[in-house]
């Protein structure tokens, strides 16, 4: 069993993230475990546990949540959120935590690579001449190589 010192808890964390109204729904969690019970990722890897994430939020375990790997195992399938009897927006909350973890440089390589691709190209896959030839042969309309407008939009911020 892991133990934490009370001094490690960050009570400001809750206020920091509660500025977004949906986040506060985690306060309604009464730890019934329906989220974890239905989670398809938990079934194959019990290191991943959405109920634990909700309890860690309540306790203000900021570092543990944002520097750890657990949140990144969420498959974004929304099963927990749809099943939650208290309508806690679990998946939306975990998604926001992933964003906060990104600010702390804790992002899996695959996720940061996709972001870079979008900043550079506006879409994940470039459609090159070869692709367009194959598309034409199949009777499909040709597509531009990149999404210029999207690239501009993301980079002008």
């Amino acid at each position, binding site marked *: 069993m892991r133990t934490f010192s009370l001094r490690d808890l960050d009570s400001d964390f809750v206020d920091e993230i509660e500025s977004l109204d949906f986040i506060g729904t985690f306060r309604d969690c009464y730890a019934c475990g329906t989220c974890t019970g239905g989670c398809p*990722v938990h*079934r*194959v890897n019990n290191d991943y546990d959405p109920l634990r994430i909700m309890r860690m939020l309540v306790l203000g375990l900021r570092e543990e949540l944002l520097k750890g790997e657990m949140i990144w195992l969420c498959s974004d*399938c929304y*099963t927990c959120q*749809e099943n939650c009897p208290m309508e806690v927006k679990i998946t939306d909350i975990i998604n926001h935590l992933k964003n906060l973890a990104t600010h702390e440089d804790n992002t899996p390589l695959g996720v940061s690579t996709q972001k870079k691709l979008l900043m550079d190209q506006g879409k994940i896959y470039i459609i090159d001449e070869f*692709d367009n030839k194959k598309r034409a042969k199949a009777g499909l309309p040709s597509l531009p190589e990149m999404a210029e407008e999207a690239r501009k*939009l993301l980079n002008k911020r």
Partner: protein
Amino acid sequence: MKYSLFLGCTIPARSRNYELSARAIASRLDLEFVEIEDFSCCGFPLEASDEMGAILLGAMNLCLAEEKGLDICVLCSACASMLTKTAYHLDHDQKLREQTNKELAKIGKEYKGTVKVKHFARILLEDVTLERIKKETKQNLKGLRVATHYGCHYLKPAYIYEGFDDPQDAQTLELILETVGVSNIQYRRKKDCCGGPVLLSDEEVALKVAEEKLRNVKEAGADCMNLVCPFCSLMFDANQKGIETKSGDEFDIPVLYLPQIIGLAMGFSRKELGLNLNSVSTKELESVLEA
């Protein structure tokens, strides 16, 4: 019926079979698609790392359709949920809308909230109608036992989708298949995810989630799977061989996109439906159909 067709990133590059079959059956059903060249990524891949960037991409695509005065038909479930969710938040959160429009103004755009986003399957059900699909059915697919995988983002989060289907007891895709005579078969843990989004952070976990589903589908004795999302297809079709090698089990389950199955019932050829592009061979299905 006229829609702008949103392909997203994965379909034109990796899932031409989905695009081909969707376009084929759409033309038969008088569903007209208009191409919008500037459509980009929907924003979904940014949701975890740059949520505002994701909203901006979603909003920009909505603006492009607004400029043409056309609703959006989406083939990929992740794109459908990202675009629908973006519209939902922009329509419910004035502050977010102002913030988004401030950024959009830099490329001369403004989100007005005038277009509707719908998944292709939802359009088949709500706009094309089952009666029309039935009318175009030439070959009854009776005897074809299909296990439908709804996937996640086609249905969820429910709060953005206006209750067009019930994530706890989804029916829409099987209703459509029933129309073309398919035998819908049930299997354990049907609602579970394909594991796709975890692929970026933990491949082993992602493949294990997919493996569970393949095993359950196999156990139920399905001839093939039916799905409506290129990520789910990647997990069950393209990755099936790899999962077999790792687990030592043989699944050999053809994985078809919904319009490929409907297209068979409408009498389109294998090539017209891109069935030759599926990873797991779909040839054996023909013997089921001929029997």
